[in-house]
């Protein structure tokens, strides 16, 4: 059950550089630790807008959550410079997370780059729930950017499949190769994916016709709470194509409800 949305300051209890230009912050935030994996927070940074970041970890027991982000611009650079004990002003938890996976169906988690963290949160939350085999496929540019691999490895029995664009770790190529193989073995499986939009488009395309494919999307946001209609993506409506708000109707969507064109 998702926690109530609030706006509040939370302290950073732990900060770690997890890869070049990739930082993870752990916050003491009991209110956020009731979030559903796939939900996100809207973090105050200097400037006009907040920054949406997904949960990399959600631990209701300790009341801690993680935010793992890549430094790509001014907002994330500012965030990466926060020190332990300083406070972050956060609106959250926001949006619709992943649905709980079905217990008896093979489950595949497919993450690309900074899309990997929310899948770890999903795995952590539901690892005991799923009794069927759990597979993890992680893709990144190079070995350096295959983040959270050890974390995943601790929670699953099967080896983690890794792909890199340059072949510096795992197999050379994208996550679509291993995913196609997984699919042929598990036509009845369920898939959670998060990563760059072209990757998600590839996943949606590859898994067309398969039920239970859930994708966590990104879109430029204004309010983060469904009020401004900035963050739309095209979905299937009852009367043809219709905009969905990533912040409110997503960020997790069933692959079938989106239009990829």
């Amino acid at each position, binding site marked *: 059950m998702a926690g*109530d*949305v*609030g*706006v509040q300051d939370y302290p950073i209890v732990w900060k770690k550089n997890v890869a070049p230009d990739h930082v993870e912050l752990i916050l003491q935030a009991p209110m956020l630790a009731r979030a559903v994996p796939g939900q996100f927070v809207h973090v*105050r940074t200097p*400037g*006009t*807008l*907040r920054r949406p970041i997904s949960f990399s970890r959600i631990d209701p027991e300790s009341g801690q959550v993680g935010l793992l982000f890549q430094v790509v611009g001014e907002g994330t650079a500012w965030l990466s410079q926060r020190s332990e004990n300083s406070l972050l002003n956060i*609106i959250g938890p926001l949006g619709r997370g992943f649905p709980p996976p079905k217990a008896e169906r093979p489950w595949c988690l497919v993450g690309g780059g900074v899309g990997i963290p929310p899948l770890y949160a999903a795995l952590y939350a539901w690892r005991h729930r799923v009794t069927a085999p759990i597979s993890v496929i992680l893709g990144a540019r190079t070995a350096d950017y295959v983040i959270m691999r050890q974390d995943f490895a601790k929670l699953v029995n099967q080896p983690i499949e890794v792909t890199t664009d340059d072949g510096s770790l795992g197999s050379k190529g994208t996550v679509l190769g291993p995913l196609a193989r997984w699919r042929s073995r598990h036509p009845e499986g369920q898939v959670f994916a998060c990563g760059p939009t072209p990757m998600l488009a590839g996943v949606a395309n590859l898994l067309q016709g398969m039920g239970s494919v859930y994708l966590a999307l990104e*879109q*430029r*946001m*204004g*309010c*983060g*709470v*469904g*009020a*401004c*209609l*900035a*963050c*739309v*993506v095209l979905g299937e409506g009852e009367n043809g194509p219709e*905009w969905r708000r990533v912040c*409110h109707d997503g960020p997790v969507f069933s692959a079938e409800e989106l239009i990829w064109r």
Partner: protein
Amino acid sequence: MAVNLETSVGALSLTNPVMAASGTFGFGPEYGPLVNLGRLGGVAVKGVSPIPWPGNPPPRVWETDAGLLNSIGLQNPGVEVFCRDDLPFLRQAGTRVIVNVIGRTIEEYCQVVSRLESESGIDALELNISCPNVKEGGMTFGQDEEHAAAVTRAVRSCTTRPLWVKLSPNVADPAGIAVAVEAEGADAISAINTVVGMAIDLKHRRPALGGITGGLSGPAIKPIALRIVYQVAQAVHIPIIGMGGIRSADDVAEFLMAGASAVMVGTATFAEPGIMETIIDALPTCLSRLDATSPAELVGAALPGRGSIEEDRRPGDSS
């Protein structure tokens, strides 16, 4: 001395002068968990058209220095859905409800306004005349005095509700437009809507927004908004609702002194959902500091002949 924040915009009274600006506050419930609507002076809902409008392709927002570009494109579910799904919530929200009205022809504006006549719980209509006028090849109604007057006249004949007309800043003489709509029976002027701007997405070598150009809002445009309020205040006798980049009680005081009777806060809510309440909390102290016991006392204080504008200025007197 005790400060009283009660404000009136013509015949309409507000508990305080701070309202939510159209398009930045949805239809009310979205910010419900984060904002106490009952504390706001009012809420202007997203523009409503006769039938649903689809809006523009994403990306629809882009951050700029001290500003925000948006090309939402006036997406909305249409007046029927608004009356069915949104009005019931707004009616019981305990704040003034201002319905922002949009249309692509004069008839469309009238259609929305007429449909709303049978609905209770609406305190004012705000005519957004920055819409593309399909009959005139996409120019906006707010672009010249004649069209602005025509749409105001038509809508005026459909309703006795307080009618506010919202000015576009993208014209040479906004005060001229204000005079024209005042003559047609507008009860107040909202100023300003967003300033047309754009950004380039260098990586993709294309305009950053899906809608190519967008509307600039936020602190970047505050000086433009203040100038327009100041010009309009000298040209019309009806009240003005000022907006553009407001994010503090001092900003509100600037708009009051420039001639606004009340204000709206838009973009600032995105970063700080509680900012309107923070401003309302800060206003009494701010007004006291400026020797005022009510917002009304400051309205127009900086207009020619009103303040210390003709005051002796010595060399170096910059303070």
